[in-house]
């Protein structure tokens, strides 16, 4: 199969997945008993008032019609309006999406930059004390929930030492320095937990390479250890990192939502949690759909990236006019 055909089929699968996921979100939010109108008006509302509000919110129309309207609206960037404040949800989401994306991508970047050298070190020293210590520490790192890591970091570096602010957020364009200062702790918390998982995989990837024939050959023809490890190990490690990050992506976004709560960061997570508390169903529906779509998009991108960097898949396509 040529790369183009592989990519085309991935795009098709992605589009169908997105459709099914949106149907699932819509059904869970709307098909279960309970009604926004009833929630807004409280327990003392007359049935007549509830019916009026339902009509005003468009809740009295058939479900399939509402689903299609919701779906069509999202393609135009229109997520509907909040059930309480009538603010357009798209406008609520946009600035917050940037905040959450900064958090997730900076954390991934930090986690990868930490995990590759540490994992390589642990692989090369795997029979020495220091190498094993790295493995033990990464086991502990994997066992700590990200939000607990956040609490610990803010307790130590913000409260006890006073080096960094404990919470809040400043937009990048308003004050870049303050933006960076406020993101250090939340990103580190996420990156430490994520990095602990990655270190294991990077370590195993390097150990696998150390036992390969081609590695032994490289060493025996006089390649220094460092050069041989970097030449052969890095690619294998990179492949592992991409795979694991793909699998862990959902965990990362979820981690970001919880971390936003710890550090009081106005991202998608805090919007979502506030909306659940108030039972603002249109916001919940829109934000969940957006996050699910993001996870699906990045997942599909990882798939494509995998096709492009895995030499085994590429060799199949050599000689094919792409």
């Amino acid at each position: 199969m040529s790369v183009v055909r592989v990519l085309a089929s991935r795009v098709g699968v992605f589009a169908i997945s997105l459709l099914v996921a949106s149907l699932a979100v819509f059904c869970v939010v709307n098909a279960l008993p309970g009604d926004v109108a009833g929630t807004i008006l409280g327990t003392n509302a007359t049935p007549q008032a509830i019916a009026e509000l339902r009509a005003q919110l468009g809740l009295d129309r058939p479900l399939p019609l509402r689903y299609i309207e919701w779906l069509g609206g999202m393609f135009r960037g229109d997520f509907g309006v909040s059930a309480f404040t009538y603010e357009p949800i798209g406008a609520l989401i946009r600035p917050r999406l940037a905040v959450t994306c900064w958090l997730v991508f900076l954390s991934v970047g930090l986690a990868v930059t930490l995990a590759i050298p540490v994992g390589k070190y642990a692989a090369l020293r795997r029979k020495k004390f220091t190498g094993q210590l790295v493995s033990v520490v990464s086991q502990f790192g994997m066992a700590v929930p990200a939000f607990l890591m956040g609490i610990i970091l803010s307790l130590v570096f913000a409260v006890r030492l006073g080096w960094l602010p404990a919470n809040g957020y400043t937009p990048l364009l308003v004050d870049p320095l303050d933006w960076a200062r406020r993101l250090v702790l939340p990103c580190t918390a996420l990156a430490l937990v994520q990095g602990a998982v990655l270190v294991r995989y990077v370590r195993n990837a390097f150990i696998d390479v150390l036992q390969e024939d081609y590695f032994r050959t490289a060493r025996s023809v006089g390649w220094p250890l460092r050069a041989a490890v970097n030449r052969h190990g890095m690619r294998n490690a990179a492949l592992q990192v991409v795979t694991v990050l793909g699998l862990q992506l959902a965990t990362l976004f979820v981690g970001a939502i919880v971390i936003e709560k710890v550090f009081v960061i106005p991202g998608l997570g805090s919007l979502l949690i506030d909306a659940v508390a108030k039972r603002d169903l249109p916001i919940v529906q829109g934000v969940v759909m957006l996050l699910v779509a993001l996870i699906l998009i990045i997942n599909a991108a990882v798939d494509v990236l995998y096709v492009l960097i895995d030499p085994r898949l590429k060799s199949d396509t050599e000689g094919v006019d792409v």
Partner: protein
Amino acid sequence: MKRSLSLTIGASLVGLVAVLALVSFFWMPFDPNHVDPASRLLPPSWPHIMGTDHLGLDIFSRILAGARICLLVGVIAVGIGALVGVPLGLIAGFAKGWFPKFVLRTADIIYAFPALLLAILLAAANGHGSVVTAMVAIGISSVPAFIRVARAATLQVVNQDFILAARTSATPKYTIALQHILPNIAPVVLVQSSVSFGLAILAEAALSYLGLSAPPTTVTWGRMLFDAQSYLFSDANLALWPGLFIALTVLGCNLLGDGLREVLDPRLQEVR
């Protein structure tokens, strides 16, 4: 049987939590919900060996009571994941035609719904979160991992000679699946169960922390962390114990999974 340090430590830690949960049914030093303003925010001392929280509740008793929910969530979530995921994964590895593809695509879609988002959806639709919505959400979100490992393991078994022999001797398909394939993929499922158990506990802790799981009267370790938030800077003791027990339990599950993998089959791959 090979010896494994990971297995020993992991099994001990998980065993410890099981013992705590069991003990809590017969004996607790104090009622975990008994408010006692006179003895609030005590440091660890006799008779409150882990101290008391902002309402004067005994932390040790609450750790004991919290162990029950912790195990319950793990067992139910892994149960849902394995009962739904393993048969689907097995059939997907065994069957031919459109069904395997359909199962895998569905698994990919479910994968895009992490436990937290599912729990949020259920809590929003329901009006409030509860331990049940949390367990169901965590269980559903663990299904794809079980599908993947069960299918991968089935694919390794399905072309071996004894399966071929069973097929040529006209053994019914479900007999092959139950008597020949299932025992062979059981080790992989066991390892995955252990890993998923740890992830379920982490997820429940996060949900409790966000106020999307147990109501205030139900004692969970995540809920204790949530309550401890306002006292973090003066009384870190309140957060120390539940945090420590969550981490130790998850560490135990991960080590147990590693140990089982070492003992049962060193080539097993993990899916998180």
